[in-house]
């Protein structure tokens, strides 16, 4: 089965639409949503409604730190993120907020583990920046492949049976076989706010039979997404950074 995995949509309707369309065109049969549905972008309602629909149809979804921040005032964020999350809070209705509040921290499908930040202590929202961070996550689970996001920069880590680590910045549209006999951590780029220098929306396809992963990019209407942010009085940098991919 071909899985399409999305992370860090951040209320960016145009980017999420483009990713869903491209993933379906490539034959994706099941969707996985790795959290941070809201924050930064100007269309949180649409994004949450779409996520709710996909989950009703069998998609997997986990909670991100921005999703948590909508329902909790204790979560601390940088200034722009905080402004965006307070704005978002006023936009979502009860059902949408309950959906975010009830999302699990991680979903374990034995072979595969889905989590927003990393697997060793998901509630602490640590970033996977180095192979050492990746190793910490990988030794905490027996899963063959762990999928996570949070850092908005794609990376692929592997740990051998002797705990030797390898890291790779994956090339777009090149399939990589995730060999059995070692464990893998697939860190996804962001759908709605890419920060790796490529402004197009990032997602991942994973073939559960061949165990091949492909990092994909979907070009989308950045202009509209950015002007929606400006129109709604959100911090302008949140609009500007979209076209720069950082």
């Amino acid at each position, binding site marked *: 089965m071909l899985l399409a995995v999305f992370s860090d949509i951040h209320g960016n309707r145009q980017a999420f639409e483009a990713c869903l369309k491209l993933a379906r065109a490539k034959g994706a049969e099941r969707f996985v949503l790795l959290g941070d549905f809201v924050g930064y972008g100007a269309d949180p309602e649409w994004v949450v409604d779409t996520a709710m629909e996909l989950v009703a149809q069998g998609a997997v979804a986990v909670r991100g730190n921005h999703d948590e921040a909508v329902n909790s005032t204790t979560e601390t964020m940088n200034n722009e993120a905080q402004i965006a999350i307070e704005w978002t809070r006023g936009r979502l209705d009860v059902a949408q907020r309950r959906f975010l509040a009830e999302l699990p921290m991680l979903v374990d499908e034995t072979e595969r583990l889905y989590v927003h930040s990393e697997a060793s202590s998901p509630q602490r929202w640590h970033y996977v920046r180095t192979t050492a961070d990746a190793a910490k996550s990988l030794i905490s689970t027996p899963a063959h492949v762990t999928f996570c996001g949070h850092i908005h920069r794609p990376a*692929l880590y*592997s740990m*051998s049976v*002797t705990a*030797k*680590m*390898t*890291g*790779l910045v*994956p*090339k777009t549209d*090149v399939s*990589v*076989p995730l*060999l*059995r*006999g*070692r464990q893998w951590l697939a860190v996804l780029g962001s759908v709605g706010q890419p920060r790796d220098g490529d402004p197009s929306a990032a997602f991942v396809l994973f073939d559960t039979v061949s165990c091949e992963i492909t990092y994909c990019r979907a070009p989308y209407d950045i202009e509209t997404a950015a002007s929606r942010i400006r129109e709604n009085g959100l911090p302008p940098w949140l609009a500007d950074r979209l076209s720069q991919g950082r």
Partner: protein
Amino acid sequence: MPKPLVKSGAEIDGYTIGECVHAGGMATLWTVTHPGIDVPLLMKIPRVSEGEDPAAIVSFEMEMMILPRLAGPHVPTCFGTGDFAHQAYAVIERIPGTTLYKRLPDLPLPYEEARQQVAKIATALADLHRQNVIHHDIKPSSIMFRDSGEAVLIDYGLSHHDHLPDLLQAEFRLPYGTAPYMAPERLLGVRDDPRSDLFSLGVLLYFFTTGERPFGEGETLRAMRRRLWRDPYPPRSLRADYPPWLQEVVLRCIEIDPAWRYPTASQLAFDLSHPDQVKLTTRSERMKRDPLSVAWRRRFNQGVMQPRAKADVAAQIASSPILAVALDTVEGAPELNEALRVTTERILATLPSARLACVNVLKLNRIAIDKTLDEQGSNKHIDRLVALRHWATPLKLDESRLSVHVLEAVDPAAALLEFAEVNQVDHLIIGARQGSFRRTLLGSVSAKVASEAACTVTVVRPPRMAAAKPGAGVVWG
């Protein structure tokens, strides 16, 4: 991990095991058959039982990732792989014949034979590098030849694929490979430079033409590290009749600093295919090793070999293409030849490692026997070589980046296409012939080349003339 179940007559995933044809340190090789596949097959099975070298598993993992992603005549076709969860294996095409290792008792080989063989290996390496793979274990036992002549590179257990995780990078603190052939930068942990393969091929060429290994057979790290500062004996000091051009090529391949080697395997193949065009530098003149004072300076000032930023294999190859420009120096309009030079200059300006081949076709008469001498009695072939060099002079290219060629052919387009194919030309620049009458009569060479070439083709026209109104009877191109 389950014990290997391999024995003659057993079946794995539809493959019936035949006989064991090789039992090496890392893997065993078996003949296998499969209904529906009618080429001879080999199954490679890694040694994974306890007490075996852990490198066997990791290098087999690399092969399982890389082999199915390779294509073309220079690699064995891969038919299937099985992973470590059940029985690890890779089924590949069985190339008939033996590896170059069998030639070791015949060394040194005649220069001409070695030149031809190594040119074929360089062509195979260029094809591999274009597929983003660095072999990292180029040596006689990794090389075979098809009956049709192409070199085939086997054994990808130590290879690096630029788009896949490099499992070997993390696994071993010490460089892994075959000591006599290992490039110096490998000793410093660099695994992403395709020019490491050119070093190994240079060692092989040195060995095959002199009978001596340039850096000995030492397997200790200390012995291997000597190549970071100590240069080998120049081949001409070992064999009095050693051709200077061959020494130039060999010593350029085994330069300590990768930047001083050939930028790409294609450019090495080009020089080996045109020995008369090899630009001779002081490398070709060397009769003895550098004085110890120089070697010691290198040893204690290894600034050039410090760690550097990660290289991108594809980007590096793309920055060092082979350009060819097709010129009509006899009948070509001066403004067209000038336009060709301007275009060539612009392309070269962006590519400091590119090399340029200037090509002219000496059209042969289909029926009459051609005379080499023209009406005035001068040699047409040489005249044209001179004209090509003259055309290229304003480009101010270093001699090692420029070559001139006169092809003798009945069909100019076919000759240019063949030249581009054989020499792995990346970009062909050609002028469009003007004048409707000649073009109608002869057909357009540029159109045929542009439509049939495997490489990029730029068709150049001189600047538009004010007088030439559209539809006024002048047909361009």
